[in-house]
């Protein structure tokens, strides 16, 4: 066992003594599991390409007092929940009818919290268990059956240099309810942050989900988003990741009810030495589910991307339709991408497509642009950016896409663009 994990376990006991809420027994279970876990090494499959040395070697500086400004988004009138280093700032916004929100240990929210906590997120994620035992900050969101919440709920999770935070979001979406949640994380100072979110969707529930993992620099960010879909539930999720010295996200989508539909888009833009690791796992446990997943990354300079896309179609999950596509664009020789599809199909009547490519620049498209007078550097920027812009344009919230696009473009412009050939 590593020193890091040992001190987590020590602190977990302290948390258990201090927090006598309804989640206490669930935390105890998680702690028992955590004690059974092996610390990952390069031989651990799920961590083969991502080293935990930065975490083990991290000595946190003094806590910085910088508090970033909350980004205002034109055309997005969101209900904001701002966390700085784990602590909720200001008062709860006034909530529309049909949704209740509270802290993780808020007694009014315990019914929803205990129903969701640890039930969507698989027990296999080591840092998920760490988050289970250490997270006392976060939000519980409960959307009543049938409620249509038009205002997006935006959860901002800023981390400053010197902070260690464990943040948890638990969301219960009742039958036929619909809601949009934006998880926005940022911070690039030396810090450690785990952030896991669990979403339980009832029958015919709809969730529009965004996760912007805009960390950078020395921040260590390990987290995940996990979704359980009831019968005919619909999930539309977009992930934007920047990477940092160590960024790792795990996504799980569990088709628990039939005829559910999941659309998952992920975009990552990495430079100069950033590391970003995305593991996604789609569980088709029942028949007639549909999943469409697209992950695209641009890797510049000496950055490293890891993508692992697993689709597990259980024996009974006939008539499953699952598609997973991962495309990566390497802008420099120093960058690396490790991409691995993992198909486990135990049902025979399914349609499942899977593709992973590492692309270089499309010469024909480049020639076409040059032949219209566009300068080479500019053409390369447009072509490469177009590759991820396609996914950004698919975001259901157009105002949000419009806000995000120029930021991604600016970030991309700073990357070292060279012709791949």
């Amino acid at each position, binding site marked *: 066992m590593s020193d890091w994990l040992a001190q987590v376990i020590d602190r977990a006991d302290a948390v258990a003594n201090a927090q006598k809420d309804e989640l206490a027994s669930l935390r105890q279970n998680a702690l028992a599991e955590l004690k059974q876990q092996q610390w990952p090494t390069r031989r651990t499959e799920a961590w083969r390409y991502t080293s935990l040395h930065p975490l083990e070697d991290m000595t946190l500086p003094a806590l910085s007092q910088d508090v970033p400004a909350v980004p205002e988004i034109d055309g997005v009138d969101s209900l904001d929940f701002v966390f700085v280093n784990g602590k909720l700032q200001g008062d709860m916004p006034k909530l529309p009818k049909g949704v209740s929100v509270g802290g993780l240990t808020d007694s009014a929210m315990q019914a929803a919290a205990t129903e969701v906590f640890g039930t969507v997120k698989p027990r296999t994620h080591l840092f998920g268990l760490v988050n289970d035992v250490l997270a006392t900050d976060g939000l519980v969101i409960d959307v009543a059956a049938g409620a249509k919440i038009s205002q997006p709920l935006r959860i901002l999770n800023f981390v400053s240099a010197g902070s260690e935070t464990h943040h948890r979001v638990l969301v219960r979406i009742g039958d036929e309810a619909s809601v949009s949640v934006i998880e926005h994380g940022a911070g690039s100072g030396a810090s450690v942050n785990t952030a896991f979110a669990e979403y339980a969707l009832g029958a015919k529930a709809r969730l529009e989900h965004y996760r912007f993992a805009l960390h950078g620099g020395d921040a260590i960010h390990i987290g995940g988003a996990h979704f359980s879909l009831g019968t005919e539930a619909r999930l539309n999720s977009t992930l934007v990741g920047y990477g940092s010295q160590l960024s790792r996200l795990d996504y799980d989508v569990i088709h628990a009810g039939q005829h559910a539909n999941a659309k998952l888009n992920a975009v990552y833009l990495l430079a100069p030495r950033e590391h970003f690791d995305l593991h996604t796992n789609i569980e088709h446990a029942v028949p007639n589910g549909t999943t469409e997943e697209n992950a695209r990354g641009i890797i510049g300079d000496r950055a490293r991307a890891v993508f692992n896309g697993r689709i597990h179609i259980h024996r009974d999950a006939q008539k499953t339709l699952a598609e997973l596509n991962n495309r990566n664009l390497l802008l420099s020789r120093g960058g690396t991408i490790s991409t691995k599809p993992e198909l486990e199909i135990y049902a025979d009547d399914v349609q499942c497509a899977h593709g992973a490519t590492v692309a270089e620049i*499309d*010469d*024909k*498209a480049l*020639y*076409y*642009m*040059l*032949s*219209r*007078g*566009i*300068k*080479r550097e*500019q*053409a390369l920027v*447009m*072509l490469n*950016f*177009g*590759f*991820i*812009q*396609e996914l950004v*344009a698919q975001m259901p919230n157009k105002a949000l896409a419009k806000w995000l696009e120029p930021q991604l473009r600016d970030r991309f412009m700073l990357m070292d663009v060279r012709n791949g050939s």
Partner: protein
Amino acid sequence: MMLTIKDLHARVEDKIILKGLNLTVKPGEVHAIMGPNGAGKSTLGYVMSGRDGYELVSGSIEMNGEDLMEMDIEERAQQGLFLAFQYPVEIPGVSNMEFMKESVNAIRKARGEEALTAAEFLKIAKEACKQVNLPLDFLKRGVNEGFSGGEKKRNEIMQLILLKPKLVILDESDSGLDIDALKVVADGVNSQRDGKRSFIVVTHYQRLLDFIEPDYVHILADGKIVKSGGPELAKEVESTGYAWLGKPEEAGA
């Protein structure tokens, strides 16, 4: 002289495709080029525009007295060369609007003109879009992405209208068009004839030349121009085909 091509030999991969091609085009002239499949018509356009892999072996190409072969691809366009592609390229993720705005502004910049603002460009783009009879949402779509064959050709003409080049090569801009679209394309081209702009119209069919009247018609076969004449030559080809090419002495006459 708008264009002077002298004894052009060019190679694609290891194969010599153009084998001693001569052509001169004066400002304002329209030259039609016809010829059998695989003769090298598209190759000529690619060599002129500077496509990778299309190499000059010997001979020269000058546009307005300047050596085209010395220029980068984008420079040739900035100097006024425009090639309407036989097979326009799809670029998903780059909007048609963004693509055309960047081109127009790159070319304006090269001419020492101010870049157009987004609003200014939108205005002229909408007009051009209407002129080629494409719905306005084609400006928002990815470049040629999912466009039908005919829509792609009209999109090329829209670019021609916006870019205002000096020398235009239309490579089978009529192929795959229904009769109404053919008229739209021809009208689009004719609207750009101002007595100074020159056109090289590559086509297999007399039909297009009924709408865009050429000053000269050339037959390109096996890498060179084997016969030149007036508009009547196109009509002749329409009725007799290229069987006569089999007899070199007749072709040389």
